[in-house]
């Protein structure tokens, strides 16, 4: 099976082809190592950083922006959202603070991406 991948490593947008052969993946169409690595990662284990918000109690804002501190498997994005939607953090919160450890056993922590003061 051959899969087409548009490289996102730079604006060039190389059309990379990845073929699953008996001798492993055959990758063509890339113009740099970054592109080759990207294509291989996309084929074998596509991952994304997930960014969203969680509900906050007593904060100056009602929601807190968060991210996974490392990329998680792409097919876990929506499942993680379900988990994220259940969380209620409590102000004050500091940037980098872990809101949920090892979310859904992805190995990634969900961390706050801003300071959020307590409502006076």
């Amino acid at each position, binding site marked *: 099976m051959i899969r087409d991948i548009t490289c996102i490593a730079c604006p060039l947008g190389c059309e990379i082809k990845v073929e699953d052969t008996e001798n492993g993946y055959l990758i063509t169409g890339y113009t740099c190592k970054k592109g080759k690595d990207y294509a291989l990662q996309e084929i074998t284990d596509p991952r994304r950083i997930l960014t969203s*918000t*969680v*509900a906050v109690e007593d904060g100056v804002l*009602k*929601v807190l922006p968060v991210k996974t501190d490392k990329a998680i498997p792409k097919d876990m994005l929506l499942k993680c959202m379900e988990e994220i*939607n*259940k*969380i*209620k953090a409590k102000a004050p919160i500091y940037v980098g603070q872990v809101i949920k450890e090892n979310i859904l056993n992805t190995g990634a922590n969900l961390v706050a991406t801003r300071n959020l003061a307590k409502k006076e």
Partner: protein
Amino acid sequence: MYDCIIIGAGVVGAATARELSKYNLRIAVLEKGTEVCQGTSKANSAIVHGGYDAAYGTLKGKLNVRGAKLYQKLSKELNFSYDKCGSLVLAFNDEDEKKLEELYENGLKNGVEGLRIIDKDEILNMEPNVSQDVTKALYCSEAGIVCPFNATFAFIENAMDNGVELFLEEKVVNIRKENDYILVGTEKGSEFKTKILINSAGLYSDEIAELAGDKEFKVKPRRGEYRILDKKVSDIVNHVIFTTPTKAGKGVLVSPTVHGNLIVGPTSDPVDDKEDTRTTDKGIEKVDEVALKLVPKLSLNETIRVFAGNRASIEQGDFLIFESKNIKGMLNLGGIDSPGLASSPAIAEEVRDFVSKYIDLTEKNNFIKERQAIPHFNELSDEEKEEILKRNPNYKKIICRCEMITEGEIIEAIHRNAGARTVDGIKRRVRPGSGRCQGGFCGPRILEILSRELDIPVEDILKESQGSNIVVGRTKGVL
């Protein structure tokens, strides 16, 4: 039991309420919308026409001239934006010039003051940016521009200061005579008893008339499409600039607005549905074509909004003001299309005369004649600004950065008589969202303020009508 009930809180209903509130009467206004000024009054050319256009001998001719005079006094008493900036009807050929002569003669007969036919030099002197192809123009010093929203709000606010009661979201669904009064029933099931009933339901005036069995007229709505241009290109003209009128209407105009924008339009196309206020490619193209003929250098790419409004036109052509044959004491105001805005204070006087046939009118001795507008903070002098800030810290916070509107103005718009309950209501009263960003920045803040001041959840806040909710819910179920 009311002495008088007015159906419809557009500019005519509101002006009527204000006129009648001078007398010892118990008055109610029933409005089907979520706020006043949501029909034809909210979307029109915002012009107080001079009165030379409507044919001599018609009600339109008479009431327009009278109305235009009254605006000068009322805008002072009630402190709403009105500018007697004058108008020019441009002629480009012999045929147009002949039409100008006719308008001029007709205007004189109607009693319009300040009419003159002027030549090219004088035109270009007054308006250097109109087309060089112009040959003659009819100048009318009595024509002006007005904010139709704030005129309506001013009328209704002052009417309420003088005891008029306003009922919103009350759509009238039946009217019948019982004993010596009229019984008015609404969709919600409310019943109102009144001696006199005024049908100023605009686009829906035929349907209200029919509830009483009156079938003398049928509203055939005509849609007008417009552009509003950014303030920065508005100094291109100083007067209301008209094309020579045709049978279809007064034609396309290019005019400054009282808020410093430029309005360009309208078309005049029949539509089947009274609520069909869609803008169309065809319509706007037509507006552009004629407008560019008048003012070739017009920067149409500085448009901040296109919109359309429907006029309550009827086949008879003239205003049709008549007492119901079936229900004595009910007055129908039919066919109030252009110049309805200009005529509204004069229509109100007609209504007053009608009421006086049934009820002996005595003037209130505590009538409050004046009403103050919500101050536009940014237009005040530094001293005046400091003065307001001392009294009210809400004026410190600018919410709308395009129009420089403070939170104080917005809060006041909410808490006045017939105050704003919707995002569009705020916009029409104090203008956040009518600037070039069209609410992109201030939108979330307006929701927050409305929610706080009216104590309703953000999810329930409407743009304008029921069903026009701005947000559909919270992002996080747990909130």
